[in-house]
């Protein structure tokens, strides 16, 4: 089989070159990290097995908090995002305007700032929320704005003849939305929404700044205790264990959905 004009012999040659180059790189790194002072120091700092062994169980326990925070937030975000999107496309101008303002203001501010405003702002108002609840609220407020835009794009991508057909059968606006428009729109937005969920999962680390003992918080805590970067690498591993398979899943779903069209 000819791929882009590359014949079999050239392909084998390219493979050989690639393998040789990769082996050379590995060898170079191995020598650097085991024979040179700077390299050895780096490994000791970042990949210290003794520290890893001691701190990993503690850091990994934060994963449960991270996942719980992401999943509970995501449920709230999907509901809020869909609602904001519906308001954003409603025929009542003031409503539409308010939704647009919300979406733009929220997207124009750092999430970190929003977490602080929610946690400390509500505390000043006498509402002493747990860091977890404050985290859910802040993440929902922020991500609902992004996901509202995704929902809106999904709804607007459905041909207007669909709404007309549904309405002309006597369905009200909301019934037409529920039975005709949204089932089609949601199918279209599953891939982008999944990507948002992956982003959310990583952004839960920001809630550590108000003291929630999730993965990153625990990693940083152990970094201080053991004066080593290794616990942070453990935290990184925790995120990757979840995000890497999720990314593959999204890729798979996206191809499956586009194949159906």
């Amino acid at each position, binding site marked *: 089989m000819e791929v882009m004009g590359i014949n079999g012999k050239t392909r084998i040659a390219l493979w050989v070159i690639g393998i040789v180059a990769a082996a050379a790189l590995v060898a170079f790194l191995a020598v650097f990290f085991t024979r040179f002072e700077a390299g050895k120091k780096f490994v000791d700092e970042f990949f210290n097995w003794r520290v890893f062994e001691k701190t990993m169980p503690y850091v990994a326990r934060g994963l449960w908090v991270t996942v719980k925070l992401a999943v509970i937030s995501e449920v709230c975000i999907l509901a809020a995002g869909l609602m904001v999107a519906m308001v954003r496309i409603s025929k009542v101008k003031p409503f539409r305007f308010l939704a647009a303002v919300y979406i733009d203001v929220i997207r124009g501010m750092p999430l970190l700032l929003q977490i602080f405003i929610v946690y400390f702002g509500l505390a000043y108002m006498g509402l002493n929320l747990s860091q977890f609840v404050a985290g859910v609220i802040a993440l929902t407020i922020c991500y609902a704005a992004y996901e509202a835009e995704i929902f809106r794009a999904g709804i607007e991508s459905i*041909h207007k003849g669909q709404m007309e*057909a*549904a309405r002309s*059968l006597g369905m009200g606006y909301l019934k037409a939305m529920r039975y005709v428009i949204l089932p089609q729109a949601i199918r279209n937005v599953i891939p982008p929404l999944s990507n948002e969920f992956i982003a959310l999962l990583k952004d839960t680390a920001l809630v550590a700044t108000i003291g929630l003992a999730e993965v990153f918080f625990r990693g940083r805590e152990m970094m201080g205790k053991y004066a080593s970067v290794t616990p942070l690498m453990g935290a990184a591993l925790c995120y990757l264990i979840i995000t890497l398979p999720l990314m593959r899943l999204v890729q798979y779903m996206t191809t499956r959905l586009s194949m159906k069209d």
Partner: protein
Amino acid sequence: MSGEYMVEIVDLHKRFGFHEVLKGVNLKVKPSEVLVVVGPSGSGKSTMLRCVNGLEHATSGHVFIEGVDITQHGIDINAMRQKVGIVFQSFNLFPHLTVLRNVTLAPVKVKKMDAAEAEEKALRLLERVGLKEKAEAYPAHLSGGQQQRVAIARALAMDPDLMLFDEVTSALDPELVKEVLDVMKDLAREGMTMMVVTHEMGFAKEVGDRLIFMDDGVIVEEGPPEDIFTNPRSPRAIDFFSKILSHL
């Protein structure tokens, strides 16, 4: 206004921005009448049709369906629309539902019909349009002619008193036009009141009780199809029919 007419349009105007598409249309359609609407593109015939089921709002004037003014504020437009079925040029079937569920959706969700009863009725209608065996297929797997016949069954499932057809064969390959027209002819014979926007002059001649020729937002000529074809009076109608009929 009495309920003597199925549809009564009084001095209907429709403007899109600065562009006036309908410039005072007056029209009455009797029960069981088949009205054919012809005219050059941009003449306002589709817009008029869409005003009859409220898909477009009249800028001024009135549209009465069975004596009820649907341009009035506070009218239950959803209830009115159940009496008026429409079939579109672009089919607009619901692609995420099977043929059967396309037909049963509105009866079940709007009329609160029992699901089993709705299915039985849908299968009867699909049989009538010759597509019973496609009940479980999705619209994407049907030809244009089949999709359009499903769209007709879907509209009929609401038991409308009036059916609107908006250039329903214009998007079809020539060899698929007949199967759709045949369904419409059957419907006309059974006494359905129909308003049909079409370029199919053969259909107009065969089943049309009356034909109106529209141009530039008004009705220019009106009468039995045969008469207007053979003896159009206005220059615009003469020009239009000479172009269209020369193809036949």
